[in-house]
């Protein structure tokens, strides 16, 4: 599936390497790969056979990342491959790794799709801690290592539908958000969960822009039943590899039946609350963005028709426009949560 004939590889897929990594980091990385191969005393292809065996999709060897810290390597050594059936798997053609890591909306790094990959060279995903607060028995500030420790990682292949009417198919690595939530023992008052993204003006140039009309940090939220749904994933990897900064390193949410902006990146705070939280997009334009933001071909966004989507990557001469599915095709798993709700009102 991932093996391409040389004639299938566009120049565009080869050249961007210098774009998403700055030169210094690239040299550093290749140095480490060589060093790693030397110490193991094996070729990289043999060394890589130890980790990620059986996964449905892996990042190209030349593009694999170094672990943010040593303990990550152990964590990623044993990932449960995706099953062969829906909903945690789809047989649709995967969006190539190169596109998944170079075409991103992550406004903290800039407003253009290529900005997050080219402007995140100084970003540090380690050390990392997450603040758990609000209606839980065990609030506190936790190291990421402690957050991840009890969870086994699994691969899941999901569709990702952006509100801008494009979509991708991406193999994530993560664990169910529900399992994480249970550990902090939410009280009976916990009806919603609120998430926050890191704000670091030093390493996130988009945050420094004087023309950003947003009140950082980026905030998103879920209703408790949505957060506990088995589909909702806390992702720490993509294509069997560590998340790159532009994809939300070190830890991000994936809510596959909602528009992509709900799947908040680089999470530093998780707050349990009784009332519906304000979210960044609703604060900004409540008439355009709703709290629920479920993928819905019947309700158009004021800026984008939602009845079809551009499945990426495309070329100008082979464009795949496909019909958008209600709940992004995950209706069987999630539609019951919204029974009786007028989805054209609660968009």
């Amino acid at each position, binding site marked *: 599936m991932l093996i391409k004939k040389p004639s299938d590889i566009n120049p565009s897929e080869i050249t961007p390497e210098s774009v998403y990594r700055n030169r210094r980091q690239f040299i550093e990385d290749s140095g480490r790969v060589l060093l790693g191969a030397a110490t193991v005393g094996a070729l990289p292809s043999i060394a890589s056979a130890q980790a990620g065996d059986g996964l449905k999709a892996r990042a190209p060897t030349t593009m694999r990342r170094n672990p943010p810290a040593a303990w990550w390597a152990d964590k990623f050594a044993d990932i449960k491959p995706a099953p062969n059936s829906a909903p945690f798997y789809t047989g649709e053609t995967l969006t190539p790794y190169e596109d998944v890591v170079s*075409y991103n909306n992550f406004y903290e790094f800039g407003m253009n799709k290529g900005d997050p990959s080219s402007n995140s060279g100084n970003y540090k995903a380690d050390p990392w801690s997450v603040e758990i607060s609000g209606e839980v028995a065990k609030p506190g500030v936790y190291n990421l290592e402690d957050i991840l420790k009890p969870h086994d990682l699994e691969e899941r292949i999901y569709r990702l539908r952006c509100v801008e009417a494009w979509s991708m198919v991406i193999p994530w690595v993560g664990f169910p958000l529900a399992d994480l939530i249970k550990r902090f023992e939410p009280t009976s008052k916990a009806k919603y969960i609120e998430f926050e993204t890191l704000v670091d003006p030093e390493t996130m140039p*988009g945050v420094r822009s004087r*023309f950003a*009309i947003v009140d950082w940090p980026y905030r998103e939220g879920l209703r408790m039943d949505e957060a506990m749904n088995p589909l909702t994933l806390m992702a720490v990897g993509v294509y069997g590899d560590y998340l790159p900064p532009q994809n939300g390193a070190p830890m991000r949410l994936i809510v596959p039946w909602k528009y992509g902006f709900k799947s908040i990146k680089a999470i530093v705070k998780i707050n349990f609350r009784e009332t519906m939280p304000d979210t960044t997009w609703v604060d900004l334009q409540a008439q355009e963005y709703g709290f629920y933001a479920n993928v819905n071909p019947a309700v158009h966004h004021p*800026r984008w028709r939602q009845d079809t989507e551009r499945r990426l990557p495309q070329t*100008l001469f082979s464009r795949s426009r496909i019909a958008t599915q209600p709940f992004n095709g995950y209706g069987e798993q999630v539609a019951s949560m919204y029974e009786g709700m007028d989805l054209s009102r609660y968009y």
Partner: protein
Amino acid sequence: MQMRKLIKPLVFILALLPLALLLLRILQNNLGPDPVQELSLETGEWTLRFLIIALAMTPLRRITNQVEFTRHRRMIGLYALFYATLHLIVWLMFVLEFRWFAIAEEILERPYITVGFSAYLILLALGITSPKFMVRKLGKNWKRLHKLVYLAAILGVLHLLWILRLDIAPAVFYGALVAFLLGYRAWFSLRGPHN
């Protein structure tokens, strides 16, 4: 004198460069994973740039006292229409893919498209009335009609502002240029006709 004759073909060719570069990228398949989006952005931004360059010609002539600037104003304005037409074609062919039923809906229901399409109709009207015989035919009304280019530029910036999401820097940049060029004219006309 010889040099002067070269300027016109030079401007003509320079203005085709953005298109040539885009065609090259299309042929090399080098427009990224979402080429439709990339083509829309590029053709739209070049429309706005040519519109602003056209609007800058009169002030430049005033400041430098070089008539040369306004001699190419019409051609540059027509290039704005040219890139706007490409922008429209990209939208019809690749975004809507000729789903004609959707066009009216899009123009009426998406404010940024309403605004962009209005700007296009203005540019089209100005393009149609740009030949010399039309200038003669319309007389005084020609000048009145062509003042609509100011509105087209404002609508163009609004169109851009409306598609931007968390950061409006590009709209601020082009908006400031348009504001400066229109402000310059307003200031001159308020000062009275002694120039």
